[in-house]
């Protein structure tokens, strides 16, 4: 549904994005991850025909964003990052205006407006001017205008920013419900959001694509090793040397030294070794006391940090 090929955008001499290539299938929800200034907004602005690429191609539903801009724009619902709205209009009036421009039939418009206002939880502010709305409600109006013509493709630039937790959950499930029928690209900094809503993730850093995969695969691929926190009552030097001798252990270090001589150790096992089971026998043999032993998983956050600092997958 969306094909992006070697897309490059330069702002003067400054880097925008560099040689970005990816595709999004129909019905897929794609998460766009990256630190500030990575180039998420830039990519979205090119796909939505707001600005042209320096080189490379982007197609939506087979239409080139540059050659057939009008056809592309008919099929897209876009929520820009800054949520720019006409603040001097009332919410339903604004939505009717946008609906008209986006080709919603005049006879359907009232019904459509009522529908999206319902979906986005806007009924409470139906009489207000947009200028009077809080940030979260503006965000909802922004989402409502993107949805008004029931577009095939949705491009959402940080859609859940500024919403309250309850609303975040509602909007996420709304977006999730859109998948299947519609193609969605959403950018975000909130990583659990990606694993919750998206089928695939793109990680972009300093304008370049770093990884494209499902959240599960990314997590699996990146878990180089398993780590455990182990709390043992025993002489520090001996514990370190004995555990270090276990051949599935790649690293051991004092994580936290307790006042009563009970230290917490961070034990890292080699990849694919089912190492956890090797520790206990050593402790028993040495007659130390074991207080705690728990694995620490690598969250998407860790992966993200790892990727954008290392910039390669191992």
């Amino acid at each position, binding site marked *: 549904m969306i094909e992006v090929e070697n897309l490059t955008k330069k702002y003067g001499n400054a880097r925008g994005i560099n040689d970005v290539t990816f595709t999004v299938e129909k019905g897929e929800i794609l998460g766009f991850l990256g630190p500030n200034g990575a180039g998420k907004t830039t990519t979205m*602005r090119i796909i939505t*025909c707001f600005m042209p690429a320096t080189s490379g191609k982007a197609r939506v539903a087979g239409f080139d964003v540059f050659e057939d801009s009008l056809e592309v724009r008919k099929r897209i619902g876009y929520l820009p990052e*800054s949520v*720019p709205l*006409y603040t*001097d209009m009332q919410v339903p009036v604004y939505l009717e*205006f946008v609906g008209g421009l*986006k080709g919603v039939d005049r006879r359907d418009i009232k019904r459509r407006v009522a529908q999206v206002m319902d979906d986005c939880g806007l009924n409470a502010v139906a009489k207000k001017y947009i200028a009077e709305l809080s940030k979260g409600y503006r965000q909802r109006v922004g989402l409502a205008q993107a949805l008004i013509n029931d577009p095939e493709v949705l491009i959402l630039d940080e859609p859940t920013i500024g919403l309250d937790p309850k609303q975040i959950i509602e909007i996420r499930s709304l977006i999730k419900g859109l998948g299947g029928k519609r193609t969605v690209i959403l950018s975000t900094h909130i990583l659990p959001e990606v694993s919750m809503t998206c089928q695939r993730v793109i990680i972009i850093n300093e304008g370049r694509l770093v990884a494209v995969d499902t959240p599960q695969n990314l997590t699996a691929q990146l878990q180089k090793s398993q780590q455990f926190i182990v709390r043992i009552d025993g002489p520090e030097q001996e514990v370190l040397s004995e555990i270090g001798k276990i051949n599935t252990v790649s690293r051991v270090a004092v994580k936290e030294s307790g006042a009563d001589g009970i230290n917490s150790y961070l034990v890292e096992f080699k990849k694919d070794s089912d190492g956890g089971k090797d520790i206990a026998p050593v402790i028993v043999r040495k007659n130390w006391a074991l207080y705690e032993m728990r694995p620490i998983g690598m969250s998407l956050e860790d992966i993200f940090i790892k990727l954008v600092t290392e910039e390669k997958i191992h």
Partner: protein
Amino acid sequence: MKNFYLIFQKELRSYFNSPIAFVVITIFLIISGYFFYTIFATFSTISFQVMTNPIMAQQYNQLNITEMVVRPFFANISLFMLIMLPMLTMRIFSEEKKSGTIELLLTYPVKDSEVILGKFAGCMGIFTIMILLTLPCIFLIELFGEPEMGVVLSGYVGLFLMGAAFISLGIFASSVTENQIVAAVVSFGFLLIFFMMGYSAGFASETIGGILKYLSFTPHLYNFAKGVLDTEDIMYYLLFTLFCIFLNMRSLESKRWRG
């Protein structure tokens, strides 16, 4: 066509939702009213003196209300338009650029021409209301004298066409900057140049002087105010307007090209 109408409607509405239209129209009417009063008062003083003083009657052997009131009235209004219209047009694209709403507007399936013409028509709407509100002055003249209605009519046509030219230039200026003040200053500056150009015709050679006169706003308006509806004058304003709209299209387009 539908998009054009939607944008036209929205543009009109946003003028009335903000104090701009109200303030501009009110100030415009106060100034026009005041200057109309001075012209009219002068005229009636002179007429009174002529009636009582035969020597003056020889000086002013024919007192013509059309020439002494109606024509200066149109000339004045054109001057106030020069000052007030940039205030109406300055926000049209600058505001959208500043607030970022242009990003959504340009990603809707709407043609650039529909956006520009819709906004142009919206501003013309406000302007039309503004000059129609000066009609009471004409009724007042009608009450005290017999102005030539043909002149009044062609004068208004002239103002309307000139307003279209001013507005198209103002909107173009507004499309090249996100700063409203810059847009207003640029359009006022250029309008003033076109307004005054004809005055320097006397210093230039005949051909250049002729060109300057042709390019200037004022000689064309004076023809209208004399009651002469000449296609050449109509064409002048129409071409000026079309040219500005064309430039405006290019400036929006270049935004798409250069980003």
